Protein backbone atom coordinates (compact mmCIF):
# COMPACT_ATOMS: atom_id res chain seq x y z
CA UNK A 1 0.00 0.00 0.00
CA UNK A 2 2.71 2.48 0.97
CA UNK A 3 5.52 1.41 -1.30
CA UNK A 4 6.48 -1.94 0.22
CA UNK A 5 4.99 -4.21 -2.47
CA UNK A 6 8.40 -5.44 -3.64
CA UNK A 7 9.71 -6.26 -0.16
CA UNK A 8 8.21 -9.80 0.07
CA UNK A 9 10.65 -10.79 -2.67
CA UNK A 10 13.65 -9.89 -0.46
CA UNK A 11 14.63 -13.53 0.04
CA UNK A 12 15.31 -13.96 -3.68
CA UNK A 13 17.74 -11.03 -3.58
CA UNK A 14 19.84 -12.13 -0.64
CA UNK A 15 23.41 -12.94 -1.69
CA UNK A 16 24.76 -16.40 -0.78
CA UNK A 17 27.19 -15.05 1.81
CA UNK A 18 24.42 -13.71 4.04
CA UNK A 19 21.49 -15.95 3.12
CA UNK A 20 22.07 -18.32 6.03
CA UNK A 21 22.44 -15.53 8.55
CA UNK A 22 19.12 -13.85 7.87
CA UNK A 23 15.71 -14.91 9.05
CA UNK A 24 12.84 -13.10 7.32
CA UNK A 25 9.47 -12.77 9.00
CA UNK A 26 6.47 -11.49 7.08
CA UNK A 27 4.51 -8.80 8.85
CA UNK A 28 2.02 -7.06 6.55
CA UNK A 29 1.69 -4.15 8.97
CA UNK A 30 3.95 -3.09 11.80
CA UNK A 31 1.70 -0.15 12.68
CA UNK A 32 4.52 2.31 12.29
CA UNK A 33 2.87 4.66 9.77
CA UNK A 34 0.48 5.93 12.42
CA UNK A 35 2.91 6.32 15.24
CA UNK A 36 5.98 8.14 13.93
CA UNK A 37 6.89 10.84 11.46
CA UNK A 38 9.17 8.40 9.66
CA UNK A 39 8.30 7.67 6.04
CA UNK A 40 6.94 4.31 4.85
CA UNK A 41 7.66 1.56 3.83
CA UNK A 42 9.24 0.20 7.03
CA UNK A 43 11.47 -2.75 7.75
CA UNK A 44 12.72 -3.74 11.18
CA UNK A 45 16.14 -5.38 11.40
CA UNK A 46 17.34 -6.56 14.82
CA UNK A 47 15.04 -4.00 16.47
CA UNK A 48 16.29 -1.15 14.28
CA UNK A 49 13.60 0.57 12.19
CA UNK A 50 14.50 1.40 8.61
CA UNK A 51 12.30 3.97 6.89
CA UNK A 52 11.68 4.27 3.14
CA UNK A 53 12.93 0.72 2.88
CA UNK A 54 13.88 -0.78 -0.46
CA UNK A 55 15.58 -4.05 -1.36
CA UNK A 56 18.84 -2.16 -2.04
CA UNK A 57 18.67 -0.26 1.24
CA UNK A 58 18.00 -3.47 3.21
CA UNK A 59 20.82 -5.34 1.48
CA UNK A 60 23.24 -2.50 2.20
CA UNK A 61 22.22 -2.55 5.85
CA UNK A 62 22.57 -6.35 6.08
CA UNK A 63 25.98 -6.27 4.39
CA UNK A 64 27.10 -3.68 6.94
CA UNK A 65 25.79 -5.82 9.82
CA UNK A 66 27.45 -9.01 8.61
CA UNK A 67 30.74 -7.20 7.90
CA UNK A 68 30.75 -5.85 11.46
CA UNK A 69 30.00 -9.36 12.80
CA UNK A 70 32.97 -10.89 11.03
CA UNK A 71 35.40 -8.21 12.20
Amino acid at each position, binding site marked *: *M*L*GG*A*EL*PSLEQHLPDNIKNQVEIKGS*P*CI*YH*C*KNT*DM*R*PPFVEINGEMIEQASITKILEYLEKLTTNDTK
Partner: protein
Amino acid sequence: MTPNKNNASIIRKDLLFRLYWQLLNDDTANVDRIPLIIKPRGRDPWRCCVYKDRAVLKYKIMSILGYSEANETDELTPLGWYAKHPKGTSSFYLNLIEEACSNCPPPCYVVTNLCRGCEARPCQVNCPKDAIRFQNGQAVINPENCINCGKCMRECPYNAIHFQPRPCEDVCPVDAIYQNSKGYEKIDMEKCILCGRCLQSCPFGAVIPSSDFPLVLEDMKSETPVVAIVAPAVAGQFRTSLEKIYAAIRNIGFDEVYEVAEGAEKTASLESAELLNLKEQNEHPGLMSSCCPAWVNFVKDNKPEWVANVSETPSPMVLTAQSVKEKNPNAKVVFIGPCLAKKEEAHSSSEVDYAITFEELGAVFVAADIEVANQEANSMGEKTPEIGREFSASGGVTHALETVVGQKIDSYIVNGIDKISIRQMAKAVKDKRTDFFEVMCCHEGCLGGSQNLTSANEAKRIIKN
Protein backbone atom coordinates in the same frame (compact mmCIF):
# COMPACT_ATOMS: atom_id res chain seq x y z
CA MET B 1 -1.74 1.42 -16.61
CA THR B 2 0.44 -0.26 -14.03
CA PRO B 3 0.65 1.74 -10.81
CA ASN B 4 4.07 3.31 -10.47
CA LYS B 5 6.10 2.94 -7.33
CA ASN B 6 7.25 6.47 -6.70
CA ASN B 7 7.10 9.05 -3.97
CA ALA B 8 4.10 10.87 -5.50
CA SER B 9 2.01 7.68 -5.49
CA ILE B 10 3.11 6.78 -1.94
CA ILE B 11 2.14 10.29 -0.76
CA ARG B 12 -1.27 9.99 -2.41
CA LYS B 13 -1.93 6.74 -0.55
CA ASP B 14 -0.44 8.13 2.67
CA LEU B 15 -2.87 11.08 2.47
CA LEU B 16 -5.80 8.76 1.84
CA PHE B 17 -5.03 6.51 4.79
CA ARG B 18 -4.38 9.41 7.19
CA LEU B 19 -7.58 11.17 6.14
CA TYR B 20 -9.67 8.00 6.45
CA TRP B 21 -8.06 7.26 9.81
CA GLN B 22 -9.24 10.60 11.18
CA LEU B 23 -12.69 10.14 9.64
CA LEU B 24 -13.05 6.64 11.08
CA ASN B 25 -12.20 8.10 14.50
CA ASP B 26 -14.55 11.09 14.02
CA ASP B 27 -11.53 13.31 14.56
CA THR B 28 -11.92 15.83 11.76
CA ALA B 29 -10.09 18.56 13.70
CA ASN B 30 -6.85 16.63 13.36
CA VAL B 31 -7.12 16.44 9.57
CA ASP B 32 -5.36 19.83 9.59
CA ARG B 33 -2.32 18.16 11.11
CA ILE B 34 -1.80 15.74 8.21
CA PRO B 35 0.36 18.07 6.05
CA LEU B 36 2.54 18.80 9.11
CA ILE B 37 2.93 15.11 9.92
CA ILE B 38 3.90 14.19 6.37
CA LYS B 39 6.21 17.16 5.97
CA PRO B 40 7.53 18.20 9.40
CA ARG B 41 9.99 21.06 9.78
CA GLY B 42 13.53 19.97 9.05
CA ARG B 43 12.64 17.40 6.39
CA ASP B 44 14.08 17.92 2.90
CA PRO B 45 11.43 19.64 0.79
CA TRP B 46 10.22 18.21 -2.53
CA ARG B 47 9.55 21.72 -3.81
CA CYS B 48 11.08 25.07 -2.78
CA CYS B 49 10.36 24.67 0.95
CA VAL B 50 8.34 22.54 3.36
CA TYR B 51 5.69 25.28 3.56
CA LYS B 52 4.94 25.00 -0.15
CA ASP B 53 4.90 21.21 0.24
CA ARG B 54 2.39 21.55 3.05
CA ALA B 55 0.19 23.90 1.02
CA VAL B 56 0.16 21.38 -1.84
CA LEU B 57 -0.63 18.53 0.59
CA LYS B 58 -3.53 20.61 1.91
CA TYR B 59 -4.90 21.06 -1.62
CA LYS B 60 -4.50 17.35 -2.27
CA ILE B 61 -6.60 16.54 0.82
CA MET B 62 -9.21 19.09 -0.30
CA SER B 63 -9.29 17.40 -3.72
CA ILE B 64 -9.83 13.97 -2.17
CA LEU B 65 -12.77 15.48 -0.27
CA GLY B 66 -14.21 16.90 -3.51
CA TYR B 67 -13.08 20.54 -3.21
CA SER B 68 -10.91 22.23 -5.80
CA GLU B 69 -8.41 24.87 -4.67
CA ALA B 70 -9.57 26.92 -7.66
CA ASN B 71 -12.92 27.44 -5.91
CA GLU B 72 -11.44 28.14 -2.49
CA THR B 73 -13.04 31.32 -1.16
CA ASP B 74 -11.26 31.55 2.19
CA GLU B 75 -7.75 30.19 2.55
CA LEU B 76 -8.20 30.07 6.30
CA THR B 77 -10.99 27.51 6.12
CA PRO B 78 -9.50 24.56 7.98
CA LEU B 79 -9.25 21.12 6.41
CA GLY B 80 -11.39 19.90 9.30
CA TRP B 81 -14.33 21.83 7.86
CA TYR B 82 -13.93 20.20 4.44
CA ALA B 83 -13.63 16.80 6.14
CA LYS B 84 -16.94 17.43 7.93
CA HIS B 85 -18.63 18.35 4.63
CA PRO B 86 -17.21 15.93 2.05
CA LYS B 87 -18.58 16.23 -1.48
CA GLY B 88 -17.11 13.03 -2.94
CA THR B 89 -17.21 12.76 -6.70
CA SER B 90 -20.21 15.07 -7.09
CA SER B 91 -18.06 18.06 -8.13
CA PHE B 92 -15.26 16.36 -10.11
CA TYR B 93 -13.58 13.01 -10.62
CA LEU B 94 -10.06 14.38 -11.15
CA ASN B 95 -8.55 17.65 -10.03
CA LEU B 96 -5.35 19.11 -11.43
CA ILE B 97 -3.90 21.27 -8.68
CA GLU B 98 -2.30 24.41 -10.15
CA GLU B 99 -0.03 24.91 -7.15
CA ALA B 100 1.33 21.39 -7.59
CA CYS B 101 1.86 21.67 -11.37
CA SER B 102 5.47 22.37 -12.26
CA ASN B 103 4.83 24.27 -15.53
CA CYS B 104 6.83 21.70 -17.51
CA PRO B 105 8.50 23.18 -20.61
CA PRO B 106 7.03 22.35 -24.03
CA PRO B 107 7.85 18.84 -25.27
CA CYS B 108 11.10 19.12 -27.21
CA TYR B 109 14.36 17.44 -28.16
CA VAL B 110 17.35 18.49 -26.06
CA VAL B 111 21.07 18.14 -26.80
CA THR B 112 22.91 16.94 -23.68
CA ASN B 113 26.56 17.30 -22.70
CA LEU B 114 27.24 13.89 -24.22
CA CYS B 115 27.44 15.66 -27.61
CA ARG B 116 31.04 15.50 -28.87
CA GLY B 117 30.58 17.78 -31.85
CA CYS B 118 31.75 15.01 -34.18
CA GLU B 119 32.77 15.38 -37.80
CA ALA B 120 29.96 13.16 -39.06
CA ARG B 121 27.27 15.40 -37.54
CA PRO B 122 24.40 13.08 -38.61
CA CYS B 123 21.97 15.11 -36.51
CA GLN B 124 22.63 18.22 -38.58
CA VAL B 125 22.94 16.50 -41.93
CA ASN B 126 19.68 14.55 -41.53
CA CYS B 127 17.57 17.31 -39.98
CA PRO B 128 14.74 17.98 -42.47
CA LYS B 129 14.23 21.54 -41.18
CA ASP B 130 17.84 22.69 -40.84
CA ALA B 131 17.22 23.26 -37.12
CA ILE B 132 20.66 22.25 -35.84
CA ARG B 133 23.69 24.55 -35.57
CA PHE B 134 26.98 23.96 -33.76
CA GLN B 135 28.15 26.35 -31.07
CA ASN B 136 31.21 25.88 -28.85
CA GLY B 137 31.71 22.38 -30.25
CA GLN B 138 28.20 21.11 -29.44
CA ALA B 139 24.92 20.83 -31.32
CA VAL B 140 22.18 23.33 -30.52
CA ILE B 141 18.56 22.87 -31.63
CA ASN B 142 16.71 25.97 -32.81
CA PRO B 143 13.18 25.53 -31.38
CA GLU B 144 11.77 27.90 -34.05
CA ASN B 145 12.66 25.48 -36.83
CA CYS B 146 12.43 22.14 -34.99
CA ILE B 147 9.30 20.09 -35.76
CA ASN B 148 9.99 17.41 -33.09
CA CYS B 149 10.42 14.66 -35.68
CA GLY B 150 13.12 12.99 -33.58
CA LYS B 151 15.42 12.20 -36.49
CA CYS B 152 18.42 13.85 -34.78
CA MET B 153 17.91 11.67 -31.69
CA ARG B 154 17.79 8.50 -33.76
CA GLU B 155 20.84 9.46 -35.81
CA CYS B 156 23.17 10.50 -32.95
CA PRO B 157 25.80 7.76 -32.40
CA TYR B 158 26.42 8.95 -28.82
CA ASN B 159 22.75 9.02 -27.73
CA ALA B 160 23.46 12.65 -26.87
CA ILE B 161 20.02 13.93 -27.86
CA HIS B 162 16.93 13.00 -25.91
CA PHE B 163 13.26 13.82 -25.89
CA GLN B 164 11.92 15.77 -22.95
CA PRO B 165 8.16 15.21 -22.74
CA ARG B 166 5.43 16.76 -20.66
CA PRO B 167 4.66 13.49 -18.90
CA CYS B 168 0.93 14.07 -18.44
CA GLU B 169 0.34 15.20 -22.03
CA ASP B 170 2.60 12.46 -23.35
CA VAL B 171 0.51 9.61 -21.91
CA CYS B 172 -2.97 11.03 -22.55
CA PRO B 173 -4.50 8.92 -25.33
CA VAL B 174 -7.10 11.56 -26.25
CA ASP B 175 -5.15 14.85 -25.96
CA ALA B 176 -7.40 15.99 -23.13
CA ILE B 177 -4.64 17.67 -21.13
CA TYR B 178 -3.04 20.93 -22.20
CA GLN B 179 -1.12 23.88 -20.83
CA ASN B 180 -3.20 27.03 -20.37
CA SER B 181 -2.04 30.59 -20.98
CA LYS B 182 -0.66 30.84 -17.42
CA GLY B 183 1.57 27.81 -18.04
CA TYR B 184 -0.41 25.35 -15.90
CA GLU B 185 -1.85 22.09 -17.14
CA LYS B 186 -5.61 21.79 -17.44
CA ILE B 187 -7.79 18.75 -18.08
CA ASP B 188 -10.53 19.17 -20.66
CA MET B 189 -13.20 17.03 -19.00
CA GLU B 190 -15.25 17.03 -22.23
CA LYS B 191 -12.44 15.02 -23.82
CA CYS B 192 -11.12 13.12 -20.79
CA ILE B 193 -12.03 9.41 -20.71
CA LEU B 194 -10.78 8.97 -17.10
CA CYS B 195 -8.10 6.42 -17.96
CA GLY B 196 -6.01 7.77 -15.06
CA ARG B 197 -2.70 7.79 -16.95
CA CYS B 198 -2.01 11.49 -16.21
CA LEU B 199 -2.48 10.78 -12.51
CA GLN B 200 0.08 7.98 -12.62
CA SER B 201 2.58 9.84 -14.77
CA CYS B 202 2.71 13.35 -13.25
CA PRO B 203 6.05 13.50 -11.39
CA PHE B 204 4.67 16.25 -9.14
CA GLY B 205 1.52 14.36 -8.17
CA ALA B 206 -0.57 17.28 -9.38
CA VAL B 207 -3.52 15.16 -10.51
CA ILE B 208 -5.67 13.89 -7.64
CA PRO B 209 -8.95 11.97 -7.81
CA SER B 210 -11.83 12.73 -5.46
CA SER B 211 -13.03 9.99 -3.13
CA ASP B 212 -16.51 8.78 -2.31
CA PHE B 213 -15.38 6.88 0.78
CA PRO B 214 -16.11 9.76 3.23
CA LEU B 215 -19.73 9.67 1.99
CA VAL B 216 -19.84 5.87 2.21
CA LEU B 217 -18.67 6.18 5.81
CA GLU B 218 -21.50 8.62 6.61
CA ASP B 219 -24.01 6.08 5.24
CA MET B 220 -22.37 3.30 7.26
CA LYS B 221 -22.93 5.35 10.41
CA SER B 222 -26.66 5.64 9.57
CA GLU B 223 -29.29 2.89 9.53
CA THR B 224 -29.00 2.50 5.75
CA PRO B 225 -27.72 -0.90 4.64
CA VAL B 226 -24.49 -0.47 2.69
CA VAL B 227 -23.53 -3.20 0.24
CA ALA B 228 -20.16 -3.61 -1.50
CA ILE B 229 -19.89 -5.08 -4.98
CA VAL B 230 -16.31 -5.92 -5.80
CA ALA B 231 -14.62 -6.14 -9.20
CA PRO B 232 -12.95 -9.45 -10.14
CA ALA B 233 -9.51 -7.77 -10.33
CA VAL B 234 -9.47 -7.67 -6.50
CA ALA B 235 -8.13 -11.25 -6.61
CA GLY B 236 -4.73 -9.86 -7.65
CA GLN B 237 -4.49 -7.02 -5.14
CA PHE B 238 -3.70 -8.75 -1.86
CA ARG B 239 -1.53 -11.79 -1.41
CA THR B 240 -4.27 -13.89 0.13
CA SER B 241 -7.47 -15.72 -0.70
CA LEU B 242 -10.63 -14.09 -2.02
CA GLU B 243 -12.49 -15.37 1.05
CA LYS B 244 -10.19 -13.39 3.35
CA ILE B 245 -10.39 -10.28 1.16
CA TYR B 246 -14.19 -10.40 1.29
CA ALA B 247 -14.11 -10.89 5.05
CA ALA B 248 -11.83 -7.84 5.36
CA ILE B 249 -14.19 -5.73 3.22
CA ARG B 250 -17.13 -6.78 5.39
CA ASN B 251 -15.17 -5.77 8.49
CA ILE B 252 -14.93 -2.19 7.22
CA GLY B 253 -18.64 -1.96 7.92
CA PHE B 254 -20.36 -3.23 4.78
CA ASP B 255 -23.52 -5.18 5.49
CA GLU B 256 -23.02 -7.48 2.53
CA VAL B 257 -20.35 -8.11 -0.10
CA TYR B 258 -20.98 -9.47 -3.60
CA GLU B 259 -18.69 -10.43 -6.45
CA VAL B 260 -19.14 -8.37 -9.62
CA ALA B 261 -18.03 -11.58 -11.35
CA GLU B 262 -21.63 -12.72 -10.84
CA GLY B 263 -22.84 -9.78 -12.95
CA ALA B 264 -20.04 -10.49 -15.42
CA GLU B 265 -21.55 -13.91 -16.09
CA LYS B 266 -24.86 -12.23 -16.95
CA THR B 267 -22.99 -9.75 -19.17
CA ALA B 268 -21.31 -12.68 -20.97
CA SER B 269 -24.63 -14.39 -21.49
CA LEU B 270 -26.46 -11.26 -22.79
CA GLU B 271 -23.53 -10.20 -24.96
CA SER B 272 -23.33 -13.69 -26.46
CA ALA B 273 -27.01 -13.49 -27.42
CA GLU B 274 -26.36 -10.08 -29.02
CA LEU B 275 -23.44 -11.52 -30.93
CA LEU B 276 -25.39 -14.54 -32.21
CA ASN B 277 -28.15 -12.21 -33.42
CA LEU B 278 -25.61 -10.05 -35.22
CA LYS B 279 -23.96 -13.04 -36.85
CA GLU B 280 -27.23 -13.91 -38.58
CA GLN B 281 -26.65 -10.91 -40.85
CA ASN B 282 -24.53 -11.55 -43.95
CA GLU B 283 -22.30 -8.59 -43.38
CA HIS B 284 -21.92 -6.79 -40.06
CA PRO B 285 -19.43 -4.36 -38.51
CA GLY B 286 -18.79 -6.57 -35.46
CA LEU B 287 -19.92 -6.20 -31.87
CA MET B 288 -17.76 -4.10 -29.55
CA SER B 289 -17.49 -4.87 -25.84
CA SER B 290 -19.11 -2.45 -23.39
CA CYS B 291 -17.73 -3.38 -19.98
CA CYS B 292 -14.78 -0.91 -19.92
CA PRO B 293 -16.23 2.56 -19.17
CA ALA B 294 -13.09 4.41 -20.34
CA TRP B 295 -13.44 2.66 -23.71
CA VAL B 296 -17.14 3.56 -23.90
CA ASN B 297 -16.19 7.19 -23.11
CA PHE B 298 -13.54 7.01 -25.82
CA VAL B 299 -16.03 5.88 -28.47
CA LYS B 300 -18.59 8.55 -27.54
CA ASP B 301 -16.05 11.37 -27.81
CA ASN B 302 -13.67 10.16 -30.48
CA LYS B 303 -15.37 7.60 -32.70
CA PRO B 304 -19.08 8.50 -32.76
CA GLU B 305 -19.47 6.38 -35.91
CA TRP B 306 -18.78 3.29 -33.73
CA VAL B 307 -21.37 4.07 -31.03
CA ALA B 308 -23.97 1.85 -32.72
CA ASN B 309 -21.49 -1.05 -32.75
CA VAL B 310 -20.93 -1.01 -28.99
CA SER B 311 -22.86 -3.73 -27.16
CA GLU B 312 -26.06 -2.57 -25.43
CA THR B 313 -25.48 -5.06 -22.62
CA PRO B 314 -25.01 -3.30 -19.27
CA SER B 315 -21.63 -3.68 -17.59
CA PRO B 316 -21.03 -6.36 -14.92
CA MET B 317 -21.04 -3.58 -12.30
CA VAL B 318 -24.53 -2.38 -13.29
CA LEU B 319 -25.98 -5.91 -13.56
CA THR B 320 -24.59 -6.87 -10.14
CA ALA B 321 -25.96 -3.66 -8.62
CA GLN B 322 -29.37 -4.32 -10.23
CA SER B 323 -29.58 -7.71 -8.56
CA VAL B 324 -28.56 -6.21 -5.19
CA LYS B 325 -31.24 -3.50 -5.48
CA GLU B 326 -33.86 -6.11 -6.43
CA LYS B 327 -33.13 -7.95 -3.17
CA ASN B 328 -32.64 -4.84 -1.09
CA PRO B 329 -34.08 -1.67 -2.69
CA ASN B 330 -33.02 0.56 0.23
CA ALA B 331 -29.39 -0.48 0.15
CA LYS B 332 -26.63 1.88 -0.87
CA VAL B 333 -24.50 0.04 -3.41
CA VAL B 334 -20.77 0.74 -3.44
CA PHE B 335 -18.65 -0.53 -6.32
CA ILE B 336 -15.01 -1.29 -5.47
CA GLY B 337 -12.70 -1.55 -8.45
CA PRO B 338 -9.46 -0.67 -10.20
CA CYS B 339 -10.67 2.24 -12.24
CA LEU B 340 -11.47 5.95 -12.21
CA ALA B 341 -13.88 5.76 -15.12
CA LYS B 342 -16.14 3.52 -13.04
CA LYS B 343 -16.74 6.52 -10.76
CA GLU B 344 -18.38 8.30 -13.66
CA GLU B 345 -20.30 5.20 -14.76
CA ALA B 346 -21.53 4.76 -11.18
CA HIS B 347 -22.64 8.40 -11.10
CA SER B 348 -24.68 8.05 -14.26
CA SER B 349 -26.24 4.75 -13.18
CA SER B 350 -29.30 4.65 -10.94
CA GLU B 351 -28.26 1.29 -9.44
CA VAL B 352 -24.77 2.19 -8.15
CA ASP B 353 -24.52 4.86 -5.46
CA TYR B 354 -20.75 5.18 -5.05
CA ALA B 355 -17.56 3.86 -6.59
CA ILE B 356 -14.30 3.56 -4.71
CA THR B 357 -10.99 2.26 -5.98
CA PHE B 358 -8.61 -0.46 -4.78
CA GLU B 359 -6.23 2.32 -3.79
CA GLU B 360 -8.94 3.74 -1.53
CA LEU B 361 -9.79 0.25 -0.25
CA GLY B 362 -6.15 -0.39 0.69
CA ALA B 363 -6.04 2.94 2.54
CA VAL B 364 -9.21 2.04 4.48
CA PHE B 365 -7.68 -1.30 5.52
CA VAL B 366 -4.59 0.48 6.88
CA ALA B 367 -6.67 3.19 8.57
CA ALA B 368 -9.01 0.67 10.20
CA ASP B 369 -6.18 -1.71 11.25
CA ILE B 370 -7.70 -4.46 9.13
CA GLU B 371 -5.05 -7.00 8.26
CA VAL B 372 -6.39 -8.81 5.21
CA ALA B 373 -4.18 -11.89 5.59
CA ASN B 374 -5.30 -12.40 9.20
CA GLN B 375 -9.03 -12.44 8.49
CA GLU B 376 -11.15 -15.46 9.18
CA ALA B 377 -12.24 -16.58 5.72
CA ASN B 378 -15.95 -16.13 5.09
CA SER B 379 -17.80 -18.62 2.96
CA MET B 380 -18.54 -17.25 -0.49
CA GLY B 381 -21.68 -17.76 -2.61
CA GLU B 382 -22.72 -21.31 -3.49
CA LYS B 383 -21.74 -20.97 -7.13
CA THR B 384 -18.24 -19.78 -8.04
CA PRO B 385 -18.52 -17.36 -10.97
CA GLU B 386 -15.37 -18.67 -12.68
CA ILE B 387 -16.22 -17.27 -16.13
CA GLY B 388 -17.02 -13.85 -14.67
CA ARG B 389 -13.76 -13.71 -12.77
CA GLU B 390 -11.90 -13.89 -16.09
CA PHE B 391 -13.26 -10.45 -17.06
CA SER B 392 -10.41 -8.74 -15.19
CA ALA B 393 -7.74 -9.76 -17.71
CA SER B 394 -7.39 -8.73 -21.33
CA GLY B 395 -8.92 -11.50 -23.45
CA GLY B 396 -11.12 -12.60 -20.55
CA VAL B 397 -14.37 -11.23 -21.97
CA THR B 398 -13.79 -13.00 -25.29
CA HIS B 399 -13.01 -16.25 -23.48
CA ALA B 400 -16.16 -15.89 -21.37
CA LEU B 401 -18.27 -15.39 -24.51
CA GLU B 402 -16.64 -18.39 -26.17
CA THR B 403 -17.45 -20.51 -23.13
CA VAL B 404 -21.09 -19.38 -23.24
CA VAL B 405 -21.61 -19.96 -26.97
CA GLY B 406 -19.50 -23.13 -26.94
CA GLN B 407 -17.41 -22.24 -29.96
CA LYS B 408 -14.45 -20.09 -30.99
CA ILE B 409 -15.33 -16.48 -31.80
CA ASP B 410 -13.66 -14.50 -34.56
CA SER B 411 -12.39 -11.78 -32.26
CA TYR B 412 -10.05 -8.79 -32.18
CA ILE B 413 -8.58 -7.83 -28.82
CA VAL B 414 -7.33 -4.33 -28.04
CA ASN B 415 -5.10 -4.63 -24.97
CA GLY B 416 -4.76 -0.95 -24.01
CA ILE B 417 -5.98 2.09 -25.92
CA ASP B 418 -3.48 4.30 -27.70
CA LYS B 419 -3.38 6.03 -31.05
CA ILE B 420 -1.72 3.06 -32.79
CA SER B 421 -4.00 0.36 -31.37
CA ILE B 422 -7.10 2.35 -32.35
CA ARG B 423 -5.76 2.95 -35.88
CA GLN B 424 -5.17 -0.79 -36.27
CA MET B 425 -8.60 -1.59 -34.87
CA ALA B 426 -10.20 0.86 -37.34
CA LYS B 427 -8.73 -1.18 -40.20
CA ALA B 428 -10.23 -4.37 -38.76
CA VAL B 429 -13.62 -2.65 -38.39
CA LYS B 430 -13.47 -1.58 -42.03
CA ASP B 431 -12.64 -5.12 -43.17
CA LYS B 432 -15.87 -6.44 -41.58
CA ARG B 433 -14.33 -9.83 -40.92
CA THR B 434 -14.38 -9.67 -37.13
CA ASP B 435 -17.38 -10.74 -35.06
CA PHE B 436 -16.31 -9.39 -31.69
CA PHE B 437 -14.02 -6.55 -30.60
CA GLU B 438 -12.90 -6.71 -26.99
CA VAL B 439 -11.42 -3.39 -25.95
CA MET B 440 -9.81 -2.60 -22.61
CA CYS B 441 -8.50 0.91 -22.04
CA CYS B 442 -5.70 -0.27 -19.78
CA HIS B 443 -2.90 -2.57 -20.84
CA GLU B 444 -3.62 -6.04 -19.35
CA GLY B 445 -7.25 -5.02 -18.78
CA CYS B 446 -8.51 -4.30 -15.27
CA LEU B 447 -5.43 -6.00 -13.80
CA GLY B 448 -3.52 -3.02 -15.19
CA GLY B 449 -6.04 -0.45 -13.89
CA SER B 450 -4.68 2.92 -12.83
CA GLN B 451 -6.01 2.56 -9.28
CA ASN B 452 -4.63 -0.88 -8.51
CA LEU B 453 -2.30 -1.60 -5.64
CA THR B 454 -0.19 -4.09 -7.55
CA SER B 455 1.30 -4.11 -11.03
CA ALA B 456 -0.48 -6.21 -13.67
CA ASN B 457 2.33 -8.78 -13.66
CA GLU B 458 2.24 -9.11 -9.89
CA ALA B 459 -1.58 -9.38 -9.97
CA LYS B 460 -1.36 -12.18 -12.55
CA ARG B 461 1.20 -13.99 -10.40
CA ILE B 462 -1.02 -13.70 -7.30
CA ILE B 463 -4.09 -15.00 -9.16
CA LYS B 464 -2.13 -17.91 -10.66
CA ASN B 465 -0.91 -19.03 -7.23
